[in-house]
């Protein structure tokens, strides 16, 4: 009897674990299958065409792709220096008694749902952008900034973790040679933790590109490519969030599925690069 239970237990766990692989394969194949109609209809034009007109059954994803790229890029150039600054502050400058509480509060802020960041952006940040730059305030610029604020805690926390992997003995040796804090950061910590730091940024990039709620509030979902950052724009997740529940034709749905597939493939790739190229998995010990 107990041999039977033993086998049953082992096989159940194995079945579920392998199920994860099947699930991921299923997700890709379902998205692909539902994209087929749009792929057949537009082919490569889907990603190069800049006209998204559901009423004319014309779907070009370029504005959404452009919006995703630009808003993520804006978020990264704003968040990276701040994240490095916070990480240096936490690993080298802050008093030992401050490190813990500040570090934990940053990690807790990373846990606050992105919809809250979006709400803050809409009610408190958009008016500021409107006052400074004119227009409606709902814009690519607002989206980039809100996105950068949203990924900042996550990015700062993992960058700090990467910097903290530097053995103390290396840092102490450099200090003993008369190095300043900056010398230690630039000649010891950054060279030692380089891969981890870059990996953290890429991982944050992977998160930012798929982030939906923080930007949906402040971007406007306007399918138009504009070099003026204070104009409303759209991105792939914003389009999905706004239009999925309202799509009314098979081709419209299929185009939205193709957008989802595109987003999944891109973020899967970015996250894999971060994980496998830069961050070899560390066991929690």
């Amino acid at each position, binding site marked *: 009897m107990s041999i039977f239970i033993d086998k049953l237990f082992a096989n159940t766990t194995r079945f579920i674990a392998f199920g994860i692989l099947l699930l991921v394969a299923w997700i890709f194949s379902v998205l692909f299958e539902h994209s087929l109609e749009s792929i057949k209809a537009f082919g490569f034009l889907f990603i190069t065409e800049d006209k998204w007109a559901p009423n004319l059954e014309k779907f070009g994803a370029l504005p959404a792709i452009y919006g995703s790229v630009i808003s993520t890029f804006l978020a990264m150039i704003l968040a990276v220096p701040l994240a490095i600054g916070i990480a240096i502050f936490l690993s080298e400058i802050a008093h030992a008694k401050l490190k813990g509480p500040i570090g934990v509060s940053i990690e807790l802020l990373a846990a606050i749902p992105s919809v809250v960041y979006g709400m803050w952006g809409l009610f408190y940040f958009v008016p500021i952008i409107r006052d400074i730059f004119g227009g409606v305030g709902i814009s690519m610029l607002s989206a980039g900034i809100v996105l950068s*604020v949203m990924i900042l805690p996550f990015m700062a926390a993992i960058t700090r973790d990467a910097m903290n992997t530097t053995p103390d003995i290396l840092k102490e040796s450099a200090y003993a040679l008369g190095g300043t804090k900056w010398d230690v950061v630039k000649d010891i910590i950054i060279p030692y933790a380089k891969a981890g730091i870059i990996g953290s940024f890429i991982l944050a990039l992977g998160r930012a590109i798929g982030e939906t709620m923080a930007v949906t509030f402040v971007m406007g979902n306007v399918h138009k490519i504009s070099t003026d950052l204070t104009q409303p724009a759209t991105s792939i997740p914003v389009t999905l969030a706004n239009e999925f529940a309202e799509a009314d034709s098979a081709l419209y749905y299929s185009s939205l599925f193709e957008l989802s597939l595109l987003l999944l493939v891109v973020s899967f790739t970015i996250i894999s690069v971060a994980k496998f190229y830069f961050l070899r998995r560390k066991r929690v010990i």
Partner: protein
Amino acid sequence: MTHTQKRIIINEIVMALSTLSALIGMGFLFWILSVLIINGIDALSMSIFLNEGAPPGNSDGGLKHALIGQLYLVGYASFFGIPLGVLAGTYLSEYSQKSKVAEIIRDISDIMMSAPSIVIGAFVYAIVVAPSGHFSGWAGTIALSIIMLPIILRTTDDMLQLVPSTLREAAFALGAPKYKVIIQVVYRGAKAGILTGILLGVARVAGETAPLLFTSFNDNFLNTDMSQPMASLTVTMYNYATSPYEDWQQLGWAAAFILSMFILTLNILGRLFLLKKRGKR
């Protein structure tokens, strides 16, 4: 200026800059937190917990429908996600420690943890909502459990591996079959860690909005039928906040406050469990 003086000055500048960036970053984050707390507490009242949604302009609208919907959605997602995640993690840690497939499952789960959640919503839309013809609580639950699964799997896997193998060997030596060793010895040894993983997983899905937008959709009234569209705090928050009505926006802040406090509490509890465990060693 000597070389040393120059180095010291550069050091001062860089340290000042990084302290400044820490201040700016923390400033933004505390701005958000204070906005959340001030607006949230301002909007809180008993009627929020007692009343359902009301048309705009009606001052006695509440969030009861969203709170209960949220409990249903997250509750059922946990009901499926937690056991599946723990069992899959058990397989990785106890049955196939270093095999190739186990490594692949770990890697894929790691990636899934950061994958865009709205895509999971699209997937569930295709397999549940479209065939059944309407949005439903079950669809939302399925999306949330898919998001929860890799988180629980990875933490369970990591936590079980921390249990010293001597404990397992001692139990085997007493003649216990493997499933008993796992359930009675390994799980017990890793209890705090698994619980932390569960709390963090629940906290993570509780804040998810994107995958619910077109799975469980929304409902302005109380509904406990899982086969129908169901309100959640997050989607309600989104709809109310983007509405032009001030009383709805107020309710949106109340929802944001309740949800954030719930999630922060789970995170803090999770941390405490882990700390307690470390302290014991």
